[in-house]
């Protein structure tokens, strides 16, 4: 009986009280699988993952035919940001209850977290098909459809969701993101604010609000349109475009040397390419900093986002000093330094905001390594040692490899 009250306490976010109730219950009925599973979920909300896994494994051991326990296990894995593992548990839950819309929806959520909207589609649409009233399933399906650029379908589904429940914060946030995809940042702000009014802790709406506020600036809007467009593509096509773009850049660059008479056309093209590339690297840190002067934006950023922006601005400041010194006639290495520290900005900025706490140290150490190697390389170049140039060359390769590391860890989680 007390599992009912524990569930109710959990609905009120009273996880400590729920834990006490469940432990009391388990002292009398140590073989109550549901109590173990719920206790696991409570512990996971308190970020005590090892204990949470242990409790849920007990539940599964006691009642291996209860699909809820597998679902609970998956939820703990998801809270612990182990999406691949979560999916295997959800598949097991589905074997026991193939018609459960929530399990399909959660697999879709795992796929979205791993940046695989295409893979999520089958699960989210099945979830909606199984239970058209399931709000979570509908919300996730809208996210997937938006990510795949199917805005009309998303809009129709959203309309239905909001009609059924006008207080669904996720649906309002989804509407905000739909507007962002459709390049309407002003309308998006209204929807995100409504979502936050209904659910002030809704992270999906908060991050949307940040993007929408930054998009008030046309330069950032251009970058955001590019990011959203890139996000709608499948990962392989995304890489083809990024690497293809770089290859074309190198070819055009080469061509402008081989046929100097074409340079007057090719050089501005190359300039535009570089400007756009720099914009995509710098847009996020730079415009986050600008939000400081925005009355709403100032409070919309998280502490991690602020820290990342401030660190990025320090690097940019160092780079600016480098440029200035070069212009004042100092050694050419100062220009090289400016270039190197500017290159570091996007990597440091993303590393400081990596959501997965297990992965973040890898990214931060990688960036620290790059920073140290580059700085040593620059000093050696200044001392005219060949080793310096070599170090800088390898640092550049490492810089490129970082991009792949990010994608690999994200999709393999």
């Amino acid at each position, binding site marked *: *009986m*007390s599992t*009912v*009250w524990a*569930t*109710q*306490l959990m*609905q*009120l*976010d*009273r996880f400590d*009280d729920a834990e006490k*109730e469940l432990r009391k*219950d388990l002292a*009398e*009925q140590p073989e109550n699988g549901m109590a173990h599973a719920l206790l696991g979920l409570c512990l996971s909300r308190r970020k005590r993952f090892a204990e949470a896994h242990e409790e849920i494994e007990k539940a599964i051991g006691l009642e291996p035919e209860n699909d809820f326990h597998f679902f609970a296990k998956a939820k703990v894995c998801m809270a612990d940001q182990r999406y691949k593992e979560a999916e295997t548990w959800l598949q097991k839950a589905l074997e026991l209850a193939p018609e459960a819309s929530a399990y399909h929806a959660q697999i879709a959520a795992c796929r979205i977290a791993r940046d695989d909207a295409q893979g999520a589609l089958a699960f989210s649409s099945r979830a909606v098909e199984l239970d058209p009233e399931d709000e979570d399933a509908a919300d996730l399906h809208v996210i997937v459809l938006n990510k795949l650029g199917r805005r009309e379908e998303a809009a129709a589904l959203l309309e239905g969701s909001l009609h059924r429940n006008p*207080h669904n914060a996720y649906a309002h946030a989804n509407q905000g993101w739909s507007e962002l995809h459709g390049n309407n940042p002003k309308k998006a702000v209204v929807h995100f*604010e409504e979502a*936050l*009014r*209904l659910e*002030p*802790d809704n992270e999906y709406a*908060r991050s949307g609000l940040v993007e929408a506020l930054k998009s008030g600036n046309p330069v950032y809007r251009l970058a955001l349109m590019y990011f959203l467009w890139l996000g709608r593509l499948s990962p392989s096509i995304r890489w083809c475009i990024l690497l293809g773009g770089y290859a074309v850049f190198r070819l055009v660059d080469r061509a402008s040397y081989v046929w100097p008479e074409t340079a007057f056309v090719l050089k501005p093209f190359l300039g535009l390419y570089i400007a756009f590339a720099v914009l995509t690297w710098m847009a996020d840190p730079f415009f986050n900093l600008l939000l400081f002067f925005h*009355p*709403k934006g100032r*409070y919309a950023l998280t502490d991690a986002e602020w820290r990342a922006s401030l660190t990025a601005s320090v690097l940019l400041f160092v780079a600016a000093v480098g440029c200035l010194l070069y212009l004042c006639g100092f050694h050419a290495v100062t220009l090289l330094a400016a270039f190197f520290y500017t290159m570091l900005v996007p990597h440091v900025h993303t590393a400081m905001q990596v959501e997965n706490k297990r992965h973040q140290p890898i990214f931060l150490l990688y960036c620290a390594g790059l920073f140290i190697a580059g700085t040593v390389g620059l000093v050696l170049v200044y001392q005219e040692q060949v080793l310096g140039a070599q170090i800088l060359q390898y640092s550049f390769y490492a810089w490129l490899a970082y991009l792949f590391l990010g994608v690999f860890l994200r999709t393999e989680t």
Partner: protein
Amino acid sequence: MDHDENIKALREAVACSPGNVPLRRHLAETLLKAGHNEEAEAQYREAMALAPDDAAVKFGLARTFYRNGKSREAMVLVEGLCQKPNAPAEALLLWCRLLRNEGNVTRAIQAYRDAIAQDRTLRDESLEQDLGIDGAKEEVVDGKVRLASGAGQDPDPQWAPVERPKTSFADVGGMEELKETIRLQIIHPLNHPDMYKAFGKAIGGGILLYGPPGCGKTHLARAVAGEIRAGFISIGIQDILEMWVGSSERNLHAVFESARSHKPCVLFFDEVDALASRRSDMKNSASRQTINQFLAELDGTNVNNDGVLILAATNAPWHIDTAFRRPGRFDRVVFVPPPDAKARREIFRILLKGKPMHDIDIDRLAQKTDRFSGADVGAVINLAVEEKLQASLKTGQLQPLTTADLLNAIKKHKPTTAEWFLSAKNHALYANQGGLYDGVLEYLNIRKP
């Protein structure tokens, strides 16, 4: 042989053979018959530890729990028994009574029928009447528990023990501004009702205190009662949980009645979000009924709440149903921030009293503990004491606490209010209808966006 001798003999037998479950059960049963309920419970518990699957022991313990007023524990055991096939008739009958007390009449009737089908001698006319069953025809006439007739257990008087707190505002360190607000809103209206009436200012209604955990909301409520020399009834989370399970409406009514009969009285609901949460958050219909009852009691529709000051405290005001903030209910909402520097100085002084220390700069400590709750200050001192104790044990000489030790501990301890403010900030920024969270915005130095 009378009961006492019988019990003595059985006790000796159990002492000789402590692992004998039937013998222990027999002792427990005899104790129960003799009215030694507590001891019977202890014996049944022992028996249960020896044979956790023994149905007879389970039923015996459940019955003892029921007698001892521990309905929830009884329910857990009986439910397990009754959900198995061929459940004993007596267990079904007990289940029926428990379900009735919970207000779950439909299931109670079913359980009663199952019990009677097995053993007609168990028929209980008063129970039938209570459940609206016509025993002769075995038909449900009026499927509801008749509260007005006073059926079932009487509201437990232990729900509402009244205390007379000796603490007053003088015992609450710092928080001067807050105390002044409370004086204006509560104490002056009670002391000068005529003046308030002359200016057409309403008196009455409840006050909701909210703020991060461990910042003295309960202490403050008690001090309010002391300040106006009123009785104080405190209902905590455990009572509320039991209300969810037991006959909640009657218990809640009993609490209010107790306050009304001890005027002037401060009725304080701690962690009130569990009792007054948004009805959309409560999926369970029994708790929704409790919420409605709570609203009715606050309104005092058929009774007079004059002289009863209703205070409530919560860490999660966002979970509270907006219906509770309507005029006459908790229409005044007060933010209780973490203690200010002056209050922290006091807390340090009180908690450090009697500990070996050397030249402690309390002002500096207070300055370095911004946003620390009273509980956090306690944790900091504990941390420093533990380290000092270890060092003292190593050297064999008592080493006194120094400012540096405490500053070190402050660095290691993250204030527990941080998580609360993270959530509160979001609510204050995005869901501040009617200026509910203005106190939080002011404290965080955020201009209204």
